Each structure stands twice: as structure tokens, then as C-alpha cells.
């Protein structure tokens, strides 16, 4: 089993730093919030000040508190949906790739069908039928989002599994008589770790988007604070057109930053899976120091195996 060691490029480090920041915000945000986010005790539509860092809403609620409290619901839903969807795509993708035959046909068909149906409209239909008390439950919403988000991962995992199924170590496991489930999930799955990780990040990214979208059009309970609900209220009160940027810009930026963090880490995983992408991690200064051409030459893609052997490896390949 290869260890998942991310290339230490500035992109990945930046991504990890952003994610770490928001994870901390998720955990301690609600305690840090200076006021109760639903309390309407203040004057409406105050501009940002030292008392209200991001001003107040038209109902006199503190926007900064809403942002801090809202992080938790947003991240929890995204994580639940991402984990469930990845588990689904792992089960379905690996089974389809390993079992082959009729099982593969059936499971591939299932994932292709889910891939072709546009996710968010389907979510809106399902969610609009949910009773209101389920809409305020983060776990229910997360589960439904995961139902629309697993298919892509399943397709990728299936392809990767097919390339592994005839390797010697799988063959050996078959010969000693390990059960199919064990081969699939204890032998093959660990070798798909980078693909799984990338799939998890991708679905978490999708889930944040889907959840925020649902909240933005008012399909989650408006009593649960999340970044989408904040945008919903801002939009409903015409904040964008009346220049109350402090109301709707912060939640949008937070969503975008979390997404950027996830995508940047995913770059690292992509570079791990496909070493040809990795040389891009060298800055032009590093390249000069190594006496490399300013751009990698055609057909001679320098491959960095790890940061310690990087210098030797690149020089050898490029000369």
C-alpha cells in the first residue's frame, strides 16, 4: 500500500491552510459568536463597526455571529454528504469493477443513469416533498445530497479497480481463498486510497454547493443558520441591490474559500496519482538552480518521487 504523501507544493499548502482554518471555525465558531444569531435586539441595517464586525440584517441580527454559527451546519452537511456519497461510490464502483459481468452491467447502468440526471433539479424535487421538520435536520439533507452525488466517484473507482483486479496480489488473495468482500475492501480498496481521497474532496465540494443552493432558494429550514440561509435572507431583503455588501458578500466568500481549499488539495492528489503533472510544482527559481530548461522539454517529463530525492531525480531525467 502506497502511502498518500501529498506533494508539498505551495498550492497544496495553501489549500490545507484554508481548510484547517474553516475546520477550526466549524468546531469553535458557535462559541466564538459574540451574539445569538437569531436575536433581533439590535438596530436594523447597521454598517460594519467595532460592535458588529459585519453589521446587522434588516431584522437587527448580528451578521458576524450568523457567519460563525452558520459554518457548522454548512460543513456538517457537506461532510456527511461527502462521506456517505464516497462510501456509496466505493461500494458500487469497486463491486462493479471487480465482479464484472452482469453485476458490472447493472451497477454501471445505475451510475450512468444517476450521472445523466441533473443533480440539483432532482434535489429540489425531492426536497420540496420533505416535511418541514426533516428539512431542518442536517443529516437528512446530507443523505439526500449524497444520493445525487455518488455516481461520478463510482465511475472513476470502477475504472481503477478494473486495472487492479488482475494484479498478482489480488490473484494471490484469491488463491488463498479470501472472500470476495475481503478482496474488494481489504485488498483493493487501500490501493485506491488517492482516488478515494480525491473523490471525497470532490463530493464534499459538490455537497457544499448543493446545500447552499437549496438553502438559497429557501428549501432548508430557515431556522438553521448556514451560509446559504444567510444569502437567502440577504436576497429576500434586496441586500445586493441596496449596496448592503456586508450582508451577502461574507458568506459567499466563505463558501468560495472552502471550495478553493478543497480544490487545491485535490490538485496535490492529482499530482500524486499522475506524476507527469507534478513537475509543475517546481518554481522557476528552483528550476534555474537545478540548471533545468525554463520549461520542461517535450517527452522528458521530470518526475519528482519525493521531496528528498527530487533534486537528483529531476537532474537525471532532464539531462
Amino acid at each position, binding site marked *: 500500500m502506497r502511502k498518500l504523501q501529498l506533494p508539498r507544493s505551495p*498550492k497544496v499548502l*495553501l489549500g490545507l491552510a484554508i481548510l484547517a482554518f474553516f475546520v477550526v471555525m466549524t468546531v469553535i465558531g458557535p462559541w466564538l459568536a459574540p451574539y445569538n444569531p437569531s436575536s433581533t435586539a439590535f438596530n436594523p441595517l447597521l454598517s460594519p463597526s467595532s460592535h458588529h464586525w459585519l453589521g446587522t440584517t434588516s431584522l437587527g441580527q448580528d451578521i458576524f455571529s450568523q457567519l460563525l454559527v452558520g459554518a457548522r451546519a454548512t460543513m456538517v452537511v457537506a461532510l456527511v454528504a461527502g462521506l456517505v456519497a464516497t462510501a456509496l461510490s466505493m461500494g458500487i464502483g469497486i463491486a462493479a469493477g471487480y465482479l464484472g459481468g452482469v453485476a458490472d452491467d447493472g451497477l454501471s*447502468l445505475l451510475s*450512468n*443513469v444517476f*450521472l*445523466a*440526471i*441533473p*443533480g*440539483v*433539479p*432532482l434535489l*429540489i*424535487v*425531492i426536497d*420540496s*416533498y*420533505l*416535511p*418541514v421538520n426533516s428539512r431542518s435536520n442536517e443529516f437528512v439533507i446530507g443523505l439526500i445530497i449524497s444520493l445525487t452525488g455518488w455516481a461520478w466517484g463510482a465511475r472513476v473507482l470502477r475504472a481503477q479497480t478494473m486495472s487492479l483486479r488482475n494484479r498478482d496480489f489480488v490473484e494471490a488473495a484469491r488463491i488463498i481463498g479470501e472472500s470476495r468482500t475481503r478482496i474488494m475492501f481489504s485488498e483493493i480498496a487501500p490501493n485506491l486510497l488517492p482516488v478515494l481521497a480525491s473523490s471525497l474532496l470532490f463530493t464534499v*465540494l459538490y455537497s457544499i*454547493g*448543493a446545500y*447552499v*443552493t437549496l438553502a*438559497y*432558494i*429557501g*428549501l432548508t429550514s430557515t431556522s438553521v443558520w448556514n451560509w446559504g440561509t444567510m*444569502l437567502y435572507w440577504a*436576497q429576500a431583503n434586496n441586500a*445586493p*441591490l441596496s*449596496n448592503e*455588501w456586508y450582508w*451577502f*458578500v461574507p458568506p*459567499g466568500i466563505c*463558501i*468560495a*474559500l*472552502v*471550495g*478553493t481549499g*478543497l*480544490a487545491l488539495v485535490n*490538485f496535490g492528489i492529482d499530482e500524486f496519482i*499522475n506524476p*507527469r*503533472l507534478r*513537475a*509543475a510544482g*517546481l518554481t*522557476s527559481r528552483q528550476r534555474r538552480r537545478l540548471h533545468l530548461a*525554463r*520549461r520542461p522539454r*517535450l*517527452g522528458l*517529463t521530470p518526475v519528482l518521487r519525493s521531496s528528498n530525492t527530487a533534486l537528483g531525480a529531476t537532474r537525471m531525467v532532464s539531462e
Partner: protein
Amino acid sequence: MIVRRLGLYALTAWVAITANFILPRLMPGNPVQTLIGKIQSQVTPAEIRAIRLSFGLGFKQGILAQYVTYIEQLFKGNLGISITLGAPVSSILRQSVPWTIGLIGLSTVISFFVGTAAGAMLGWTRGSRFDSLIPTATFFQAVPYFFLGTIMLLVFGSNLHWFPVLGAYSQSVTPGWNWSFVTSVLRYGELPVISIVLSSVAGWMLGMRNMMITMIGEDFVLMAVAKGLPRRKVIYHAARNAVLPSIANLSLAIGLVVSGALLVELVFNYPGVGDLLLQAVLNEDYPLIQGIFLVITLTVLAANLIADVVYLVLDPRTRSEAAV
């Protein structure tokens, strides 16, 4: 290959249609009761019956017979009556669907070509200063479409007055095939199109860049360089092969773009199905929600089919496979 894909899309359409049938019957919150609860005045049994019928929930039919009636009505183009607007769903959709297809179709085509070209260049010049575009593109990719749309509306519409805001054409022109209407539509479409392109272009760009980098390592590119082909030709050579996965992955991408773009319509008050969907959701107008979902799904499937045909034309390998 194309027959297989057709079969897949037919099956997907059937799944979507059936989900539309099953969901109202499966969900714990009975939509009929919700609706009756929303009507303040006394509801007569005749009215309840009418509401039930509008959901296709006839009293005397078994579930299978209901399903058959539902499919029959669907093939006649009957999607039920909108509860809030009182008009047939199909005629409401006929007015809004062309706007959506025009807006999203145009933006997707622009964003695909711009993104692919930029991605090819980024892949080719990898390691140059253009690489700094990548984190920026990633950021734009992560911003929700509707949020970017809102910002653009605020900055370029209501503050700088560079673009007209809200709606699809000026109030002063009469809709129809006349010059002033067409130019007005194009003018009003600029800002929504730009914001959808900005949100979706990064996906194409990054995918293409990665494929291009992988392609550059292939022997045929080295061969092309060794033969002394001009650089432009070599890039074109590699790009033609690198673009194939982008096209093969269109089905995922189209679904994502449509999902995001529906909300852009909402931000710009564009008279397409996105705006309609929001109204329907707010009013719990279930026949309308379902009708919109069906139309969106079928349109996306049709777009996928077109993408498959394009793929077939571009990749000779699939053609020879089909011939064997």
C-alpha cells in the same frame, strides 16, 4: 455505441419520469394535505377531488392503472395544471424553456471553447508564469454561480451601469422577430452569459490542462516535434487528442452547469425555467416543479446525446469499433 447510449438515455428518461410519479406517493408529507392546509377557506369535497386529480391521485384506480394514465397523459404533452398559475404546465413551460436553452446553451458553448483553448495553452506552457492563473480559476470554480451572478449584477449593473439589469429584454420593445427586440435580448443577455461563463470556464480549463500535460509526454507529440512541424501544428495535434476526455465527460459537466445556471436566471430575473422553479418551490406548486424537472432532465439528456455524436465524429477509434 450510439445505440447503447440511446438505450441508456431512454432508460434515464424513464427513471426520471417514474421518479416523478413515485415521489409524491412516497413522501411522508402528503402534498394534497399540505395544499389543503394552505387554503384558508373551507374546502369542499369537490375541490379536494380536483386537487387530488391534478396530482394524478385518482380515487378508484389502483397504483398500476394510475401509472398507465400518467404515462398516457405525459405522451399527450399533458403535465397537469399549475396550482398557483392556473394554466397548463406545458403551456407555461413553452414560454420559458426557449429562454433557458438559449442562455445556458450559448454560455456552455462559449465556456467550452474558451476554457479548452486556454487549458491547451496552459498545458503547453506549463511552468511559465501563466500557471498563476490556476489558483484564480479554481477560486472562480468554487464560487457558487448565483453568488458570482449577484456580484456582477451589483458591480457592473447597478453601480457602473455598464449593462442593463433584470429581465431578458427592455420594457420598451415589443417581443417578436424585429431588430430592436433581438438586439435588446442580446444586450440584456450579456451579463448573465458572462457570469455563467466565468463560473464554468475553470472546469474546462483545468481538465484540458491536465490532459494536455499528459498528452505532451506521448510519443506522437515528440514525433511531431522531431519532424519539425511548426509549433502551432504540434499544439493542435496534441490538443485534438487531449480534448476527447472533456467531451466524454460532458454528461457530468452539463448537469452541473445547468444546475448552477438555473440560479443565475433567478438572480437576473431572467424569464427562464430557473425563475419559474423558484416561484413553484416557494408556492409548493408541485405539478409545476415536476414539469420543470422533467423538461430539464430531458433537455440535458438531449444535450448529452449531441455530445456523444460529436465524440463519435471526433474520435475515429469509436467509429471503427462500431463498424466491426
